[in-house]
């Protein structure tokens, strides 16, 4: 709301013009709103659209790059793991083909083979065992004491017997150390076959996967097809633990999927089923971490959008307010001028009408006057009526009434005549008295106490009598409207600066609220709307005071009264100098 107070244009709270006059003026709010919405829309919309398109395009580009990278890591490592398994299977296969069962039953020979394997393949082979068709381990070399173990009936053994090869998943077994087993079948006979069984440490997998440099708090590990971890992971548990993520669906290719972990963080998971063993390779990255570089780009984009939008909006608001303000000033000037002219024309018409009415009435009044006068004369001359008080009284009353009517018409004529007056020497007291004479009847009826204080021998000065008269008439009328019946109006005239006379009108009426005070001289501003006020009185007064080269001040307190001070120059301004 505070922001609105800053950007709100000065004409926003302008009240509606007086009824019936609004058609003269534009709706500034509407023009301003239209200007702001149109220019704002036209300039901001493309900016927003471009930024949003750019935003999504960049987001997609960055996302797909990470996906590609994840896929690449998974498939590279899958190849390494597959190769590792294939190589070892092939080595065992070679051994069973290259050696007879008798050779392999020889512990020395078997120990040599294990040593050779260790030399050729690096780490990995932990032990070697030879198991006959009945499932008994007939020879064993390795760190554990497993000679004579009976494997008959075990699933893997059956599998080797049937398919010739078995790759186990990782298990603890008798030795309580995680390991895996590769077993191949030797011999051709169904009854006299044997199995060469090698236990492999999972260390090579571990070092392969743990050495991977993975961004985004990445993790790479193997699981078996039941979702049990086959190598330790950084974030999802140790070896042989249950993976707290859903098991990925089988596909023959490297695949990506998106999941959430227990903490609700988004994960990007790349996986691959490894055909050579019961394993699934998984690379898991936190999306949030991955997208960190994107966050910076995104922030830059948003800041750019906000800064541009703010600059554009500021310029648009400023420009719109400036333009509409210019329109408003011109429009109000035009309307005010129009109404000054209208008012002047109206007053001139009233003046002409009053003059002609007064003239037409004065003629018959004069006839009545003379006829009654003659009657009076005759009564006084004729002896028989000389003492008829009743008749004489009647005639006197006719003459007195004619005199009264004559005073009224003369006042009217004077007033009308002054409307057309030019600059002349005026006695300000006389002008005020004339105005009071003109509207004094109302004051009398409403018991308004009017006091006029003019210093004695106040010097006359040059001024436009007609305008002065209208100014005073308007202000006094205004005071009459403000005061209650029985109220007071004090009028004082003082000489102020050398070239100015100030006329002060002080009433004890209802007063003008602070917020209205600044606007009472605006055209159409009226608090009496609907009660016959046009909102023109004081604006016209203001215009007239300016025209005679003076100025007007107003002070008011609600409930206490109002004071108008009219400063009148004592040297009339020439027509060419008038505003």
């Amino acid at each position, binding site marked *: 709301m505070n922001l609105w107070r800053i950007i709100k244009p000065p004409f926003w709270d302008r009240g509606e013009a007086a009824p019936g006059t609004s058609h003269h003026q534009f709706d500034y709010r509407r023009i301003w709103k239209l200007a702001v919405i149109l220019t704002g829309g036209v300039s901001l919309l493309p900016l927003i659209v471009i930024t949003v398109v750019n935003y999504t395009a960049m987001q997609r580009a960055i996302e797909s790059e990470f996906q590609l990278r994840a896929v690449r890591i998974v498939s590279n490592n899958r190849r390494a793991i597959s190769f590792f398994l294939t190589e070892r299977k092939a080595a065992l296969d070679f051994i069973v083909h290259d050696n007879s069962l008798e050779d392999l039953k020889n512990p020395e020979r078997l120990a040599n083979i294990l040593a050779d394997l260790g030399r050729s393949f690096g780490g990995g082979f932990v032990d070697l065992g030879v198991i006959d068709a009945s499932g008994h381990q007939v020879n064993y070399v390795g760190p554990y004491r497993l000679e004579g173990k009976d494997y008959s009936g075990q699933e893997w053994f059956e599998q080797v017997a049937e398919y010739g090869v078995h790759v186990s998943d990782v298990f603890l077994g008798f030795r309580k150390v995680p390991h895996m087993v590769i077993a191949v079948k030797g011999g051709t006979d169904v009854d006299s076959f044997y199995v060469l069984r090698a236990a492999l440490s999972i260390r090579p997998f571990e070092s392969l996967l743990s050495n991977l440099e993975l961004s985004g708090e990445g993790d790479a590990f193997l699981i078996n097809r039941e979702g049990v971890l086959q190598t330790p992971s950084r974030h999802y548990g140790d070896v042989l633990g249950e993976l707290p993520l859903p098991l990925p669906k089988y596909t023959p290719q490297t695949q990506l999927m998106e999941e959430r972990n227990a903490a609700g963080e988004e994960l990007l998971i790349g996986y691959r089923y490894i055909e050579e063993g019961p394993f699934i390779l998984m690379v898991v990255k936190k999306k949030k971490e991955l997208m960190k570089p994107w966050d910076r780009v995104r922030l830059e984009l948003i800041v750019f959008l906000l800064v541009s939008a703010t600059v554009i909006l500021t310029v648009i608001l400023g420009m719109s307010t400036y333009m509409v303000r210019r329109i408003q000033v011109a429009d109000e000037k035009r309307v005010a001028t129009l109404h000054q002219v209208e008012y002047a024309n109206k007053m001139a018409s009233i003046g002409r009408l009053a*003059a002609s009415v007064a003239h037409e009435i004065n*003629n018959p009044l004069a006839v009545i006057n003379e006829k009654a*006068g*003659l009657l009076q*004369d005759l009564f006084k001359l004729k002896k028989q009526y000389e003492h008829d008080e009743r008749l004489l009284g009647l005639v006197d009353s006719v003459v007195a009434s004619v*005199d009264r009517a004559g005073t009224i*018409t003369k006042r009217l*004529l004077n007033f009308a005549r002054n409307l057309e007056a030019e600059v002349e020497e005026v006695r300000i007291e006389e002008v005020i008295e004339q105005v009071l004479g003109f509207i004094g009847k109302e004051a009398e009826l409403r018991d308004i106490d009017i006091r006029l204080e003019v210093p004695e021998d106040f010097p006359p000065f040059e001024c436009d009598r007609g305008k002065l008269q209208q100014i005073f008439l308007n202000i006094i009328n205004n005071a009459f409207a403000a005061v209650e019946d029985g109220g007071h109006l004090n009028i004082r005239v003082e000489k102020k600066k050398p070239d100015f006379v100030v006329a002060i009108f002080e009433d004890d009426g209802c007063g003008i609220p602070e917020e209205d005070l600044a606007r009472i001289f605006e055209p159409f501003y009226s608090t009496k709307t609907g009660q016959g006020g046009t909102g023109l009185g004081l604006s016209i007064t203001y215009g007239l005071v300016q025209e005679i080269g003076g100025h007007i001040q107003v002070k008011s307190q609600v409930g206490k009264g109002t004071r108008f001070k009219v400063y009148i120059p004592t040297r009339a301004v020439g027509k060419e100098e008038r505003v």
Partner: protein
Amino acid sequence: MRVLLVDDEAELVEALAERLSLRGIDADWAVTSKDALGKLDTQEYDVALLDVKMPKLSGIELKREMEKRAPGMKFIFLTGHGSEADFRAGTAEAGVDYYLVKPVGIDELLKKMKEIVGEGGDRHG
């Protein structure tokens, strides 16, 4: 003192003339400019009381005509006021003091007439 009253309102001049007569002033009257000028041929007047607004010739024009025929004659305008232009022309021609607005009391009128011709100025008396 001999006075000529000119006004297109016959009722007015008739009554006024009679009232003036009652006060010992010789008063003639006319309701048209033509009449008024005709009167000048046969009679001399000290002062003429003219209405400003009259058909054909206005009071001001009539005054000028009469001045030509009777130099030295004085004039007082009596008017229902009329327009600002009439007021200006009338006061310029006769002076503000002798431009009277109807209705005027008989005493004021007498005073003004005496003033303008010079006190007691009854040349024919």
